[in-house]
């Protein structure tokens, strides 16, 4: 069985890619005929497996960790396609192993959806885990956020080496109290930046009220001290360093602090010392993952895609990217991957769009979005649930302005597909 499962899986992968099929299907095939394939392959890695999970920022953070580790000369395997569940990992492995099933890498850095991560760590205990945040997200899929926090706790408890936790998210920071095996390290935020990260518990409290901090903040390995327009200050090892940043949005840069802690934990465990200049250089060059604050060019002006999939993500998106001078489109779909329940739109305040209004609404729930904006007193240009004509009208109507599109996951895929016909869009395979 073992001898032909890998060639067969790779063959299925080739055929299914030729047919333009789903990226996880070959993973399903190899899992069926050789259930030990994933564990066996990953267990050969000298530095083991690192898992990245949490509600928001998994994809960009994983990308950062990979690029940081590569700057240290490590060979990294990752699940780049965003198929962030076990079958997707198996499929990605099939792409990278040779025909005899050998993986040429030092470490695997895997982005895993909270629910799937639990199944994964039961089969493959990771050496490292990085837990970003627990926020209200698609409650129809994940249930209550307290349950999501329990899923992350389970990931941490299965980790054999180092667990990296968000010091500023009480639900994540508290996980440390439940652990006795792994070492715990934190990433943190300067107090002056805390108010830019509303958590769900403050949803309904007054504007500007502070986030309740832990009674006593533990020491953080890396602290984000300041965010500028194109740079940021990080504090570690007792000093503050300034570095240029290509990433946009405070939340992305906070996740850069998370990636730094994980990369330092991994690189610091090797035989060669950590190359800090290399880490910073790599960090300054990380570009956002597709759709996560990605900037494309249309008619010579930027068109930014901001993925929004839950209230906190939408609020952070609105807060991080000022609406001034931009034409705005919002695309809300309600396919399974987006979440079918529209309640989350009512947990986001849209006051910041009031001044300029929203030029175009689209997606299967465009009218739910219109209704939401009406109740926040935001003017609406046009509404068309069909994404193709809506996007064309939006671009046509705002030729002289930079553009910003807030979109749910499947709406983003559709919009990128449309945009690839008129501009350069990075191909993600």
């Amino acid at each position, binding site marked *: 069985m073992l001898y032909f499962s890998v060639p067969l899986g790779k063959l299925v992968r080739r055929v299914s890619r030729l047919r333009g099929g789903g990226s996880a299907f070959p993973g399903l095939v190899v899992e069926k005929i050789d259930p030990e394939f994933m564990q066996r392959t990953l267990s050969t890695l000298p530095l083991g497996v690192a898992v990245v999970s949490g509600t928001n920022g998994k994809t960009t953070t994983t990308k950062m960790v990979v690029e940081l580790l590569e700057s240290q000369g490590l060979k990294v395997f990752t699940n780049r396609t965003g198929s962030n569940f076990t079958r997707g990992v198996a499929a990605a492995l099939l792409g990278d192993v040779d025909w005899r099933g050998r993986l040429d890498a030092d470490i695997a850095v895997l982005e895993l959806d909270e629910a799937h991560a639990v199944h994964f760590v039961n089969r493959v205990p990771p050496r490292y885990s990085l837990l970003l945040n627990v926020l209200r997200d698609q409650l129809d899929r994940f249930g*209550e956020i307290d349950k999501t926090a329990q899923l992350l706790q389970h990931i941490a408890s299965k980790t054999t080496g180092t667990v990296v936790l968000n010091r500023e998210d009480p639900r994540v920071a508290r996980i440390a109290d439940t652990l006795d095996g792994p070492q715990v390290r934190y990433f943190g935020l300067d107090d002056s930046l805390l108010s830019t990260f509303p958590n769900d518990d403050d949803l309904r*409290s007054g504007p500007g009220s502070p986030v309740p901090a832990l009674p006593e903040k533990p020491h953080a390995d890396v602290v984000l001290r300041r965010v500028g327009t194109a740079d940021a200050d990080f504090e570690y090892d007792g000093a503050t360093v300034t570095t240029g940043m290509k990433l946009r949005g405070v939340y992305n840069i906070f996740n850069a602090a998370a990636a730094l802690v994980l990369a330092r934990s991994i690189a610091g465990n090797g035989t060669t010392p950590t190359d800090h200049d290399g880490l910073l250089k790599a960090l300054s060059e990380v570009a956002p993952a597709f759709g996560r604050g990605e900037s494309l060019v249309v008619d010579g002006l930027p068109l930014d895609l901001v993925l929004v999939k839950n209230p906190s993500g939408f609020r952070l998106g609105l807060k991080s990217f000022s609406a001034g001078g931009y034409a705005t489109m919002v695309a809300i779909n309600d396919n399974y991957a987006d979440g079918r329940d529209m309640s989350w739109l009512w947990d986001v305040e849209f006051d910041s769009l009031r001044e300029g209004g929203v030029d175009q609404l689209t997606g299967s729930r465009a*009218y739910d979005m219109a209704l939401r904006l009406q109740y926040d*007193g935001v003017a609406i240009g046009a509404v068309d649930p069909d994404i193709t004509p809506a996007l064309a009208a939006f671009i046509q109507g705002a030729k002289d302005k930079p553009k910003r599109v807030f979109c749910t996951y499947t709406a983003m895929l559709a919009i990128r597909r449309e945009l690839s016909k008129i501009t350069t869009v990075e191909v993600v395979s």
Partner: protein
Amino acid sequence: MTPVSQDGESAAGGPETVSPDTASKGTIRVLQLYPRDMNIYGDWGNALVLQQRLRWHGYTPELLEYNVGDAFPADVDLIVGGGGQDSGQLVIQDDLLSRESTLKELAEDGTPMLLICGMYQLFGRFFKTRTGSVIPGIGVLDVETHGTDERLIGNVTVSSTEFGDVLGYENHSGQTTLGPGVKPLGTTPKGTGNNSSDGKEGARYRNIVASYLHGSLLPKNPAIADFLIRTAVERKYGSFSPGAPDDRYSVLAREHAARRPR
């Protein structure tokens, strides 16, 4: 694009329904019950819709909050309560029981109330968990709820003789059965509703509308919002003279939502 006033006092995206100069027809005090702990599925949307529609009908809304340990405000005209996580329900449980007589009095007196999901359950007689422990409710509604392993999730259409089609989204594992003291909000041609057996959704008692539906409920169901508002105004001022809110987005959102899969 239509210019919009900056103070949020008026509706955008449509014709002005209330000119800021028009004198208010009166003030309605809307109380949110436990918004800090019970707000899991966009429950703010219901409070926001009541606030804005009161304005659009020419009244002045006064939005109040009641959280655990607060003094209970006097002269409340309308009450809205939402769903919570298990932890949220535990936090408010004792406080809610301590307010039993106040809330019963208001309910019996005819105060309009909207109770969603968790608050619907806790206004009932009891919630019996899967493990058999019984969480007492305040017994305003003659309903009981039993925890199950089955989660009822998805889009719902409720057929109501009073409000027409009610559209929303359900997500609950507690199953509720109605006693003879209450009527259902309606039947469910699409979705499940109170429980997986009798095809009924929600509960009606005096001026209380209780439901499992969020989405949020009121934005896409202005008939229910206006029933609550009209009742509150009539109780306070004797008669209600409605404005003309612009509901075209609501009509279209309902049409599109009704076509979405379960």
